[in-house]
């Protein structure tokens, strides 16, 4: 088939650029400037989809994003896009589309059998059945319903395309480039305001492209082209084509989707498929026009039934030639369709208007062309199989049948008020136009043109220009008055007809969700009368078109049933997005491995080159262990590393721990208040272990803080809590004690820090530093710290130990981090030094009974961790008061203890719960849980730390470590949490 239904001339398609495309495997030809919908119509394709519930044949109903019927699956493979509206797809060469929700084929869909059961499948039927037996829901009913429901199928493959996020700022955002939007843009742009004009279509002009207008003696299309040319030349005006503004957010923020490459087979190299704009606008003018609404009558869903304005657009803009046409209109605007068809020499069989009186001058040219006109008449039903074949008309009590294949319907217009209500504004009913118009508007927003119920072109142009000028003037630009363009007057009368009561067949309100007038009646009968109840019970307006063509009709039907005015019944609230937006576009560029930033310590490359396996620690990558040639598994490597530290010396990268530089005259006082223990009394050149509580008395974090000068401390935090502690300190300073002379900054990234631990640590450092420092125990004892310069590099040295061995932490500016690591390894080579990772670090600290993330879980008190004595009684500190609450000081609370398996061959796992021996485990006899475990080379078995009721008092007792989710059940002995050197002698050598 090749354009059997295309006019030989006219329209805005480029006949010089033919494009080939496929629908359901068949090849067709369209032209540049077509949409998929117009190209299908031009090829005589009427049936394009099947409906949601009854699988009724459906065709093309509209020209835009309001399309309820023509849903197709666009593209294939990983680029498959189900539920795409054919009316919104710009045609490109090689386009591939398929029908959906039908089997085995679109022409012959077996699921259409559902229509036979239609008497059962009414609105809300599923709430009343499928309940017996209960177990059948998941196994039988639900799978059947799920398979039948849904529309298109997703590819199930990762999306291969990229998306971008961008932000733009402007004085005036104009949404929609029809006559009102273009006039507004011209007025604001000429005044010098920074204007952004967004248009959903690929061509500017809106209805100017679809209707026959004369503006100042030119065609509407020519006028739009000139406006576009002038706007393009204005330096402060940006035009976003193919861009839908989808949401209005607080603070003058507008979300917009730019379809950068959807009109191409695939995005060009380095181009995103789509871009989500966050537009921050001081003023916004919505000029999105109005949508025609259908009339609810029997068989109003058959392929061939179409909105009158849509048919006009297909004829005028896309040069589609429909066959035998009838028009059913209750608006003056509908008559324009007849007029335009006659102008295009397309015969129109009959015009049916339910109104008894229609302006003579509207009818005259139609009658003159030989078209039959029936006033005070309605279309009651349609006939046809896979497309429309005839209509039944009721006139003065007699039934007439007309053979037609296209029926244009005009039931009035609904202004596109969606964006005006996103911030909660309620629309207002206008009796004059029989529709809702914007009510209270968000601050800074104005509405112009048909979107405000101004349907005449002259009004659109004038009000658009006025809104543009007002917005610019408000912002301090001077707008000069321009003469209003000259256009002919128009008739715009509407007499709403919501429903043809005499219809015998199914009359659809929501075409996509198969909601009929009967369903609305049932909802009414069952008490679902509030518009939101109607929506939720019948699914009216919940389809992919969000009820753009159906909501008002449904609400009006309900208003009739309850005997109230539409205005009183109201309408449902619209919410963003105004049109459906790809999830990938909203997600933006940070996908896959780029979901979150990856932070690497300075020694990362060196670690990789030396056999490190990496682990995520928050956003950091840390070496977990270093595999040496010949080592068979991680446990072997980790055990070797831990043994090396206990016997010789190891080096561990501890740069990821948070480092906060705290300076100021009151730094000591500040620390006294945030830590439970005292820091103002700490001597310069000394460090101290500190514990911090939250305001509610539970432990927040721990770490050592060193005093480098009387007004200068450097705090360390755990890796995981670095940001949280920084936030906490800032909060305390800014909110609680702004009077303190103290300032703080995170220096985690600025300093690289290594732990050098083991009995040979001092020798290693002496090898490295030579005579630069006296590292003897007397000169540089446990908990000493110093700043110095070595080889012209500023350095800090702390004598701290997490492992329980003689140990130091040495820090340099991060630029020297990797060099220092190499130097440390060189200086320790003769001592048998080994790098060690987070696993060995964990083994060493568990052996020593030091708490870490497993224990600092936000649910433990200082006393729970055996650190209760640290709470100073001489001063106030954050968390002091609430830590005294009865439940926090309950002696029955689980408290830190060590654990060893009774059978030393058994493995422990953290997350196991402690229960007494010999009774059935249950929640009533749970006693606590394991927080950390490790295989201890020192002990020769797995060991653990855990919280158990009255732990310290129960040393030697045996309990079960019960781990049903991993099939674990190990008898363990409660012991001291310190497995190595309980006296701490090794720290002080």
């Amino acid at each position, binding site marked *: 088939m090749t354009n059997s239904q295309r006019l030989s001339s006219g329209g805005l398609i480029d006949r010089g650029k033919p494009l080939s495309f496929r629908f359901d495997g068949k090849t067709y030809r369209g032209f540049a400037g077509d949409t998929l919908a117009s190209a299908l119509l031009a090829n005589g394709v009427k049936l394009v989809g099947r409906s949601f519930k009854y699988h009724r044949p459906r065709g093309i109903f509209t020209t835009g994003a309001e399309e309820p019927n023509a849903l197709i699956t666009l593209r294939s493979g990983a680029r498959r896009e189900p539920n795409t509206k054919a009316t919104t797809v710009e045609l490109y060469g090689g386009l591939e589309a398929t029908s959906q929700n039908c089997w085995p084929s679109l022409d012959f869909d077996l699921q259409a059998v559902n229509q036979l059961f239609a008497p059962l499948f009414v609105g809300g039927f599923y*709430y009343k*059945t499928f309940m017996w037996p209960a177990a059948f829901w998941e196994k039988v009913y639900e799978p059947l319903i799920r398979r039948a429901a*849904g529309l298109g199928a997703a590819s199930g493959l990762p999306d291969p395309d990229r998306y971008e996020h961008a932000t733009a700022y402007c004085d005036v955002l104009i949404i929609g480039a029809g006559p009102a939007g273009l006039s507004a843009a011209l007025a604001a742009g000429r005044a010098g305001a920074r204007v952004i004009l967004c248009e959903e279509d690929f061509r500017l002009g809106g209805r100017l492209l679809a209707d026959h207008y004369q503006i100042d003696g030119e065609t509407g299309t020519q006028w739009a082209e000139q406006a576009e040319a002038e706007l393009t030349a204005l330096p402060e005006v940006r035009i976003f084509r193919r861009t839908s503004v989808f949401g209005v957010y607080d603070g003058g923020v507008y979300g917009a989707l730019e379809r950068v490459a959807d009109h191409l087979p695939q995005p060009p190299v380095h181009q995103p498929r789509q871009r989500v704009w966050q537009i921050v606008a001081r003023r916004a003018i919505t000029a999105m026009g109005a949508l025609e609404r259908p009339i609810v009558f029997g068989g109003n869903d058959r392929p061939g039934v179409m909105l009158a304005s849509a048919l006009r657009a297909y004829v005028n803009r896309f040069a589609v030639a429909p066959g035998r046409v009838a028009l059913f209109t209750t608006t003056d605007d509908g008559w324009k369709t007849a007029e335009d068809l006659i102008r295009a020499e397309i015969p129109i069989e009959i015009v049916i208007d339910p109104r008894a009186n229609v302006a003579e001058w509207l009818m005259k040219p139609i009658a003159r062309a030989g078209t039959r006109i029936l006033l005070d008449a309605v279309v009651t039903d349609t006939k046809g199989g896979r497309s429309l074949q005839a209509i039944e008309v009721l006139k003065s009590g007699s039934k007439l049948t007309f053979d037609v294949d296209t029926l244009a319907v005009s039931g009035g217009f609904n202004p596109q008020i969606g964006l005006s209500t996103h911030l909660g504004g309620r629309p207002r009913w206008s009796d004059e136009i029989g529709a809702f118009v914007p009510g209270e508007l968000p601050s800074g927003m104005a509405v112009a043109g048909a979107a405000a119920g101004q349907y005449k072109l002259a009004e659109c142009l004038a009000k658009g220009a006025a809104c543009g000028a007002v917005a610019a003037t408000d912002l301090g630009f001077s707008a000069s008055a321009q003469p209003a363009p000259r256009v002919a007057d128009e008739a715009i009368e509407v007499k709403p007809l919501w429903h043809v009561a005499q219809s015998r067949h199914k009359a659809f309100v929501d075409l996509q969700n198969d909601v009929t007038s009967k369903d609305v009646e049932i909802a009414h009968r069952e008490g679902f009368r509030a518009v939101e109840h109607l929506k939720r019970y019948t699914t009216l307006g919940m389809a992919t078109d969000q009820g753009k063509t159906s909501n008002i009709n449904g609400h009006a039907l309900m208003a009739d049933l309850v005997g109230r005015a539409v205005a009183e019944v109201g309408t449902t609230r619209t919410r*963003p997005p105004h049109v459906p937006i790809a*999830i990938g576009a909203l997600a933006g560029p940070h996908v896959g491995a780029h979901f979150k930033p990856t932070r690497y310590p300075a020694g990362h490359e060196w670690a990789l080159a030396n056999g490190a396996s990496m*682990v995520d620690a928050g956003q950091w990558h840390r070496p977990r262990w270093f595999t040496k040639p010949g080592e068979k598994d991680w446990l072997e490597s980790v055990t070797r590393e831990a043994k090396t530290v206990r016997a010789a010396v190891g080096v561990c990268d501890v740069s990821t721990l948070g480092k906060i530089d705290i300076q100021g005259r009151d730094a000591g006082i500040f620390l006294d208040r945030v830590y439970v223990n005292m820091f103002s009394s700490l001597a310069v050149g000394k460090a101290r272990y500190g514990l911090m509580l*939250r305001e*509610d008395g539970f432990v927040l974090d721990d770490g050592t803080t060193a005093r480098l000068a009387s007004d200068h401390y450097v705090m360390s935090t755990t890796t995981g809590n670095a940001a949280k502690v920084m936030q906490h300190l800032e909060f305390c300073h800014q909110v609680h004690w702004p009077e303190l002379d103290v300032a703080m900054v995170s220096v985690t990234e600025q300093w690289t820090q290594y732990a050098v631990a083991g009995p040979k640590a001092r020798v290693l450092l002496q090898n490295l530093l030579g005579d630069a420092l006296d590292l003897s125990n007397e000169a540089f004892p446990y908990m000493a710290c110093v700043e110095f310069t070595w080889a012209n590099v500023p350095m800090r040295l702390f004598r701290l130990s997490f492992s329980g061995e003689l140990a130091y932490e040495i820090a340099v500016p991060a630029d020297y981090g990797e060099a220092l690591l190499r130097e440390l390894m060189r200086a320790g080579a003769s001592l048998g030094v080994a790098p060690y990772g987070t696993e060995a670090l964990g083994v060493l600290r568990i052996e020593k009974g030091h708490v870490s993330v497993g224990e600092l879980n936000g649910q433990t008190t200082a006393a729970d961790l055996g650190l209760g004595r640290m709470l100073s009684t001489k001063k106030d500190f954050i968390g002091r008061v609430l830590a005294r609450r009865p439940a926090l000081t309950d002696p029955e609370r689980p408290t830190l203890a060590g654990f060893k398996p009774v059978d030393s061959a058994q493995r422990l796992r953290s997350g196991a719960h402690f229960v007494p021996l010999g009774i059935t485990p249950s929640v009533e006899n749970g006693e606590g849980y394991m927080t950390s475990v490790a295989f201890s080379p020192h002990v020769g078995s797995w060991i653990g730390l855990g919280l158990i009721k009255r732990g310290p008092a129960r040393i030697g007792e045996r309990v079960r470590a019960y781990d049903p*989710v991993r099939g674990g059940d190990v008898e363990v002995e409660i012991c001291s949490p310190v497995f190595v050197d309980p006296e701490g002698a090794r720290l002080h050598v």
Partner: protein
Amino acid sequence: MRYSIFSLARNALGGHKGWTPTWRDAEPKQAYDILIIGGGGHGLATAYYLAKEHGLTNVAVLEKSWIGSGNVGRNTTIVRSNYMLPENIRFYEWSMKLWEGLEQDFNYNAMVSQRGVLNLYHSDGQRDAFARRGNAMRLSGVDAELLDREQVRRMLPFLNFDDARFPIQGGLLQRRGGTVRHDAVAWGYARGASDRGVDIVQNCEVKGFVVENGRVAGVETSRGKIHAKKIGIAVAGNSSRVAAMAGLRLPIESHVLQAFVSEGLKPLIPNVITFGAGHFYISQSDKGGLVFGGDLDGYKSYAQRGNLPVVQDVCEGGMAIMPMIGRLRLLRGWGGIMDMTMDGSPIIDKTPIEGLYLNAGWCYGGFKATPAAGWCFAHLIARDEPFPAASAFRLDRFARGAILDEKGQGAQPNLH
């Protein structure tokens, strides 16, 4: 009218003209024994159980708008009892049990779908925390399974196993968890309560309390004064505002939480999945839409709407674990108001005013709690003593320090 395939068929033959209202849209009387403020899931469930379990039917539910217009009509429909603290497990498991028998109990198909809830983990630490939680569930007699990476992969091959910033290591699965058709819960309870004589009064906004000698005596409403001996507040999203009318200040901050639904699709996601390295949870409705959500917007608000950065953040989380959803379209989003407590757990308790009872502070978790919250609140109101499963949800627990902080976040409501 009892609902069944037979009543459906019978009515189909009669052109569906025989259906009657699902619940009576009652005019308020001047006095009742008990008033429930709030015609949401919890309020309607409370009325239902008052009538059914305690035989108390001189009861009215007062709803300022249409029933089900609050959070029961704007959530992600997930039900589960996979908590860690015994007090929470006990309560939510009671709720789970009620869900399991709900449809037969109130003769309304709320589409309780026990399709499984899977929480993904991405690190050893998270695995162990999930093990602790799963073990706590098992100790309480609740089903829980800890899956490894390969088990998750077999179950959900479409997740991002190859290119993830935080690779999936496994998951904690509660097979009995799942989803429920949220609106139907409100309607089913309303119908059950109404059939037993409870008045469901819509478009009736409470404007103030009548308190006499320290005892509550009634309410002032937009439809006049209504007397009552006992009054229960169940107004999630407005708890602080309604309680303030009685002079009560609650340990609650109200935050907005957005949720989203995609266009309808053929079956794609079999169960409920939550991301462990970002805030994202998703399931697919029986109608085909992907229903998903994430984090709070972060600021306090009573506006039922959110902002764009969180929409983007949620979608980013979704793409991180299932990059197949990139070309699927987000159809609609909405915002619900979460009454966030200081420890993330709810309150079902008496108030300092005699005869005034409070059901509040459900944070994210109110929907799945609906049956048990109604059951326990009804028990408290009817008998003046807490039902054992909810006995920990006391107002004074903050003063005692007996907080129920699942996540260990402390008294920062927006982090729970």
